[in-house]
């Protein structure tokens, strides 16, 4: 973080410590468009960042995050087994269906009668007849233990080498696999992922009768005229937000040279409010979310178009792309594993969409949580759910990732607030 005042070339503002004072620079020189004042000193979210209370409390520091590489390297060779496997197929049948063990195998595979063939997924091949395939115990064991020794491009987690299952449990699962010799019998057509129709989101998300997310807009309008400690409100400078911000949110996130990072709407709100009205709308607080919904909603229908033309933005995009492809956490998933390689498949009962389509509706109302989530909280949850430690919402890595994601969604129309599960 920069200390003290900042001069941006061609800018008209001097931003001093605390960001409360705006002083027009001495030069009346011809300048580019005025830059919005931003607090560049503090953090934009709570420090120390504490994981949400109701999220799993696992410490996954042993594995990669978007900020660091720490996962153990893939083994170079399959493990040699001393003899045939001794496993309990009944226990194996339970383990493959156990959602508490990182999703379970059924998240990605149909496996005959396992889990009652209740909404299995189809990211991976149907294993219902694998018992007929004459595969060796050693192959089956190692495929579960760490499939990277056979397929460097796999999206399947390294269940053994990342400590999700121990050797005996893997033996039990192998023993179960060897019993699978006939196609799964589904109770209903919906249970068969090959026959299940892809979900189509049809809800009227801008209807306040349908989407409680819309109620935040009334609250945002109240905040807009609320004066902060400086005696100013948003309205003091922005008396006509509907006109002024008609296409603003659709151009975000942006590379911000004063902070040397990509700035998204939520972080912008925090830093800009601090530097103007004095309000401290930290990221992932209710007020911040409400304003983010409002500002995105003002750009309703505008095509998303982020700037990746500058050298710095191009570099951020490249970093974001690399991060989207980095394997994270104990389950060893990259964003692109699910939203690229496995897009348009089912994980258990949930449909995986491609990167394009995962951004235009954020912030969104979540019917399962009964709250608004912004994109940074969505990133955080994805990480925690795949057993990777999350970063604070204003982490620069999230900015890079968001810029990359927004670029993949170029041309899609802003449609906020969304309504989703």
């Amino acid at each position, binding site marked *: 973080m920069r200390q003290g005042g900042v001069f941006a070339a061609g800018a008209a503002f001097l931003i001093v410590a605390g960001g409360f004072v705006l002083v027009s620079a001495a030069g009346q020189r011809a300048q580019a468009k005025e830059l919005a004042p931003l607090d560049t000193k503090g953090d934009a979210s709570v420090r120390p960042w504490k994981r949400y209370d109701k999220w799993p409390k696992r410490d996954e520091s042993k594995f990669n995050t978007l900020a660091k590489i720490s996962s153990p390297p893939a083994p170079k060779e399959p493990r040699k087994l001393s003899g045939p496997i001794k496993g309990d197929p009944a226990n194996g049948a339970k383990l493959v269906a156990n959602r508490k063990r990182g999703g379970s195998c059924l998240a990605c595979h149909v496996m005959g009668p396992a889990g009652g063939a209740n909404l299995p997924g189809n990211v991976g091949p149907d294993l219902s007849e694998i018992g007929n395939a004459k595969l060796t115990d050693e192959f089956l064991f190692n495929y579960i233990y760490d499939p990277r020794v056979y397929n460097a491009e796999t999206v399947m987690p390294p269940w053994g080498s990342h400590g999700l299952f121990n050797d005996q449990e893997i033996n039990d699962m192998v023993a179960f696999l060897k019993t699978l010799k006939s196609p799964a019998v589904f109770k209903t057509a919906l249970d068969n992922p090959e026959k299940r129709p892809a979900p189509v989101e049809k809800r009227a998300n801008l209807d*306040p*009768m349908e989407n*409680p997310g819309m*109620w935040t807009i009334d609250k945002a309008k109240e905040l807009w005229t609320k004066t902060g400690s400086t005696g100013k409100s948003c309205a003091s400078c922005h008396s006509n937000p509907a006109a002024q911000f008609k296409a603003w949110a659709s151009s975000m996130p942006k590379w911000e040279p004063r902070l040397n990072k990509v700035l998204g709407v939520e972080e912008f709100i925090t830093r800009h409010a601090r530097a103007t009205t004095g309000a401290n709308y930290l990221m992932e607080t209710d007020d911040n979310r409400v304003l983010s919904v409002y500002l995105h909603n003002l750009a309703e229908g505008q095509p998303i178009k982020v700037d990746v033309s500058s050298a710095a933005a191009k570099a951020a995009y490249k970093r974001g792309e690399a991060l989207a492809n980095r394997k994270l956490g104990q389950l060893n998933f990259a964003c692109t594993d699910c939203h690229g390689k496995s897009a348009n498949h089912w994980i258990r009962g949930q449909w995986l969409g491609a990167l394009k389509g995962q951004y235009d509706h954020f912030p969104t109302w979540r019917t399962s949580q*009964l709250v608004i989530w912004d994109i940074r909280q969505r990133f955080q949850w994805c990480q925690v759910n795949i057993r990777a430690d999350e970063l604070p919402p204003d982490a620069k890595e999230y900015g890079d990732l968001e810029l990359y994601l927004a670029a993949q969604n170029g041309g899609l129309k802003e449609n906020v607030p969304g309504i989703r599960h």
Partner: protein
Amino acid sequence: MAATPRLKLPSQAKKGDIIEIKTLLPHPMESGQRKGKDGKPIPRKIINKFVCTFNGKPVFTADLEPAVAANPYMEFFAKVEESGTFKFTWTDDDGTVTTAEQKITVT
């Protein structure tokens, strides 16, 4: 501190029309099944009754149980023969009553 009900119904209609009415009251509908941080159940507190009248006469009523989702939404129909006022009433377990009204001109 009652929440503001939301209503969607036409302000005009022809005699004999069957109009569609949509209503929603922001309300958590605490079911009594959830457990708090201390492990103890959070007490039930729901809207248990919804009444729609027209010019004082009952049109549609619903008895709600905890399985009605938060922000209870009710959509139903009414046959209008004359101009008048629809009145909507929501009753909370704790006795609080929230009301809303809307006039309709019927020609």
